[in-house]
């Protein structure tokens, strides 16, 4: 017979999990004893939140649920921000938390936190396991829920006595799940498909708006093929980066208030908008209602509840992105007119970027352009949050790599742990975390994790000694009353790199950029590069 903790490890093995991120404590210690006797590699992070972000980066590359493990109480509450981040971005994570002994639940004993209650609105589903015999079913369901339909994090809270208690039945991992309340498979409604076809054939100016759901549904290739077959131009949200390479003739940039003005103009000129896997939140379309009154909108999403949440579409279409575009590919659709593409090209040519950037330091636009051009074709670029994120999204040169960021929650400190997770899953892919000096300091404790586990993530800090995006907001909104945004001159990054035995690269001017980036990208180890940018440089 085996105890609950051993069963939990068996469940992970049955799911093919070989690596987990975590931080132990007493309430999860029996599970760690199980890990000790297993072949699963445990990566000890330096704070629980980063275990969640690392699992997020891992899952986004593996396209399967990744696992993070924490103890009860503060360990578990530290994880909540990462769960909320994964939930906002629909990333499949299975989070395991230790819990105080069942008979003590509700008594506010040492390190007790009601995790099911606390995470209610940040997870797709959660479990508090009270009987070790339930563990195989719960794990099977958790992985299934996390990875199907609209993906998302699932929490499994396991009291220590449940981990220690013997199962009364022989361990058997279920082959399938039976849940009355969860049926994620949606058959494509051909009636709706035909409406979409009719709308496309009527439209003279169709435009695709791709969101993160396209990538989560592994739909990049299918959507690319669809765009090309019917010559339909494409714009995307921040999370939808990666369907078309930047140089593609049908590519017209990122929309939204942080996107390309010509992408927004394209949205305004279109007569039919095909929104795919995007919730059209405020940052992408400021007033979705107005838009829906002006143009016909086809809204495609796996999550029925997204349809009509922010905007009433003309034609809703619920289902899996691959199924839907697979079905559409077989339909008789007239390709869009070349004159429409020409019109958008002209808009793009005539939209001038009036922003002026300082030449005292490194131009952040040039930095991101050069970096992403020099990076390997299939490299992983992880953008943090702040001005650095918007410069990244604005200038990133998409080839066949991945652009990861948290567009939904905008959690500072995401890039380093997420890059760590991505790199661990795909060691052959060059991985760069790009952050600001604010976001860097939110997860710089993970330099140790990179070092100890020899995970060669490259970290590039875009440094302006301020919380730049808030500073910019204060500039625009509060008459440049800068309050609580200055970071000053510390840490000394060279010494920090030295403290972690990491190669260090510094670049203070655009002239030095090529040489420094070349050396930084050629370095085989985890390494740190700092680029000085002018604090006066703004996103807008």
């Amino acid at each position, binding site marked *: 017979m085996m105890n609950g903790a051993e069963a939990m490890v068996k469940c992970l093995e049955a799911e093919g999990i070989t690596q987990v991120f975590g931080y132990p404590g007493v309430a999860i210690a029996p599970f760690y004893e199980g890990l000790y006797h297993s072949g699963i590699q445990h990566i000890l992070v330096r704070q629980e939140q980063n275990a969640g972000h690392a699992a997020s980066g891992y899952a986004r590359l593996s396209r399967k649920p990744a696992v993070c493990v924490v103890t009860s109480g503060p360990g578990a509450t530290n994880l909540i921000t990462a769960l909320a981040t994964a939930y906002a971005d629909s990333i499949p994570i299975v989070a395991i938390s230790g819990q105080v002994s069942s008979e003590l639940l509700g008594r506010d004993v040492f390190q007790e936190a009601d995790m099911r209650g606390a995470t*209610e609105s940040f997870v797709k589903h959660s479990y508090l396991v009270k009987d070790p015999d339930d563990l195989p079913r719960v794990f099977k369901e958790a992985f299934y829920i996390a990875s199907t339909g609209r993906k998302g994090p699932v929490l499994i809270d396991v009291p220590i006595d449940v981990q220690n208690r013997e199962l009364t039945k022989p361990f058997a991992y279920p082959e399938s799940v039976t849940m009355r*309340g969860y049926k994620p498979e949606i058959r494509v409604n051909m009636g709706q498909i035909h409406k979409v076809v009719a709308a496309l054939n009527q439209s003279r100016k169709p435009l695709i708006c791709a969101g993160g759901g396209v990538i989560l549904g592994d739909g990049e290739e299918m959507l690319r093929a669809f765009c090309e077959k019917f010559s339909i131009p494409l714009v995307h949200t921040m999370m939808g980066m990666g369907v078309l390479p930047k140089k593609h003739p049908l590519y017209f940039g990122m929309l939204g208030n942080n996107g390309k003005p010509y992408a927004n103009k394209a949205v305004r000129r279109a007569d039919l908008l095909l929104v795919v896997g995007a919730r059209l939140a405020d940052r992408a379309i400021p007033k979705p209602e107005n838009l829906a009154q002006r143009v016909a909108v086809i809204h495609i999403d796996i999550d029925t509840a997204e349809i009509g949440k922010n905007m009433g579409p003309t034609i809703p279409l619920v289902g899996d992105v691959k199924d839907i575009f697979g079905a559409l590919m077989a339909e008789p659709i007239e390709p869009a007119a070349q004159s429409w593409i020409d019109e958008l090209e002209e808009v793009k040519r005539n939209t001038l970027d009036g922003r002026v950037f300082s030449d005292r330091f490194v131009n952040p636009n040039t930095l991101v352009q050069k970096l992403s051009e020099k990076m390997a074709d299939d490299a992983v670029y992880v953008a943090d949050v702040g001005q650095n994120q918007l410069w990244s999204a604005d200038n990133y040169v998409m080839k066949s790599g991945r652009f990861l960021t948290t567009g939904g929650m905008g959690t500072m400190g995401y890039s380093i742990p997420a890059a760590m997770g991505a790199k661990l899953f795909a060691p052959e892919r060059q991985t760069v975390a790009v952050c600001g000096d604010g976001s860097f300091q939110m997860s710089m404790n993970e330099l140790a994790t990179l070092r100890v586990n020899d995970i060669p993530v490259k970290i590039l800090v875009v440094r302006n000694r301020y919380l730049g995006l808030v500073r910019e907001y204060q500039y625009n909104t509060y008459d440049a009353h800068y309050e609580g945004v200055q970071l000053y001159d510390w840490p000394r990054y060279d010494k920090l790199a030295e403290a972690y035995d990491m190669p260090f690269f510094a670049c203070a001017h655009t002239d030095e950029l090529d040489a420094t980036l070349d050396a930084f990208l050629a370095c085989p180890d985890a390494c740190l590069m700092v680029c000085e940018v002018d604090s006066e440089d703004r996103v807008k």
Partner: protein
Amino acid sequence: MKGIFSVLVENRDGVLSSIAGLFARRGYNIDSLAVGVTDNSEISSMTIVSSGDQRTIDQIEKQLNKKIDVIKVRRLTEAKCVTLEMMLIKVSCSATTRSSIIELCQITGAKIMKVAPKYLLLEYHADPEGIEDFIRLVKGYGILEIQRTGAIAMEKS
């Protein structure tokens, strides 16, 4: 507008709080909520009455459907279902007003559960509107306490 939802859910701990939490988080109103187990002890039935514009009511249905522990959501329209609510109400009375309250009970079908020197404890059931009407009727005598169950509803077909 009013939305009446008949929701079948897994009869497990945490489900009620998860449903209530959904309403709280997304700013939906709960006008009333009644929960009870069905003939299958693993399944509970909830009747949730909410109000809001068309989009809100549509969203409530979709968001309820997203919950893993929600088995089935049915949206009921008042015309096509029977709704019923029960109420216990203490109405203040004196020797002079008692007989007129008793007369009112006879007309409306309210049941007198307890007679006390200073009040009558009545049980009344009707659809939620009927309950409101009854409250208005006895208001003049002075209401000491009200307990309402919230509406339960069932489709006629």
